[in-house]
């Protein structure tokens, strides 16, 4: 199997590429994690999940989006699950019933912050499993740590991947930079910026810092936005989103650090 096919197969059905590549236990764990988190979140959210679509597609893409919710981010990498959820969605043809269905999508649900975290996490965890399948398929030199695991650990706690890879002072510095940026964003906006129900576009980059959206989404997401809104509300949204994007760099660097070390050790 080629590395690209391993990625595509994992996105379609998490764990399937691992089974084909002779790692059935890892495949089952991947399947349970990705599918389990998605459907646990979906059980809380129902059709409210589709409040998270990034944009309404143009007319010529609307038919495609009816079956394939490519605009539902960051869940879209968990392709198989999002397609199933989309096909099971209540989409009546009757305009009056459709209006009622759309009203229900806009209605906040109890525990929806947990639901949004779980579905988002399923999309991102699928990406880590896809990276793992790609690594298995390309058969690189054996590394001391699992490459995808260090990236995944960095997603939860920035810098922890570097710590596992042995670069401890770099771990404190890079991880600290991401966490401090996220905290500044929260503080300047009175702690109300991480809320997918209110501003989904910011949630997509924010979700690249898993520990951040877990802690602030569950702990602070339900806070009422003060009236008038905090003076630096938009700045807070921007800084927390930038912190997520910074963590994307940290995750990729953690993967690269482990991979580079393995290739150096393998070179005679």
């Amino acid at each position: 199997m080629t590395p690209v096919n391993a990625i595509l197969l994992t996105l379609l059905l998490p764990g399937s590429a691992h089974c084909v590549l002779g790692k059935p236990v890892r495949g089952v764990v991947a399947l349970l994690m990705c599918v389990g988190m998605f459907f646990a979140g979906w059980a809380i959210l129902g059709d409210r999940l589709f409040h998270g679509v990034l944009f309404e597609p143009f007319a010529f893409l609307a038919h495609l989006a009816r079956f394939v919710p490519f605009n539902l981010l960051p869940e879209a990498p968990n392709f198989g699950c999002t397609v199933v959820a989309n096909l099971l969605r209540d989409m009546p043809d009757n305009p009056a019933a459709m209006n009622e269905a759309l009203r229900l999508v806009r209605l906040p649900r109890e525990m929806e912050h947990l639901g949004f975290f779980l579905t988002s996490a399923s999309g991102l965890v699928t990406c880590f499993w896809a990276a793992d399948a790609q690594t298995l398929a390309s058969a690189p030199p054996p590394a001391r740590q699992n490459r995808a695991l260090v990236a995944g650990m960095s997603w939860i706690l920035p810098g922890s991947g570097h710590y596992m890879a042995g670069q401890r002072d770099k771990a404190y510095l890079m991880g600290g930079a991401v966490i401090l940026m996220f905290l500044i964003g929260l503080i300047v906006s009175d702690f109300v910026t991480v809320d997918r129900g209110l501003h989904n576009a910011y949630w997509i980059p924010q979700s690249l810092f898993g520990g951040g959206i877990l802690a602030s989404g569950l702990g602070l997401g339900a806070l009422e936005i003060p009236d008038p809104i905090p003076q630096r509300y938009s700045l807070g949204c921007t800084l927390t989103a930038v912190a997520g994007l910074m963590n994307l760099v940290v995750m990729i660097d953690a993967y690269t650090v482990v991979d580079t070390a393995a290739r150096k050790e393998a070179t005679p």
Partner: protein
Amino acid sequence: MRLVIYAVAMFLIMVVYTGQHYDNAGDILRDSVRKTGKFLAWTGILVLVMELCFWLFID
């Protein structure tokens, strides 16, 4: 206050950016301080040019 947040945010972004190119914290800090200073200087120049354009063509 806004300028302080801008400078701090720029420094933190530079820490992560330069962190990809070094293996130890000392080198990362030195390079990120240098790059932050450079970026702030360019920001100042950009703001001055925009103010000048405003003064020449709009005001």
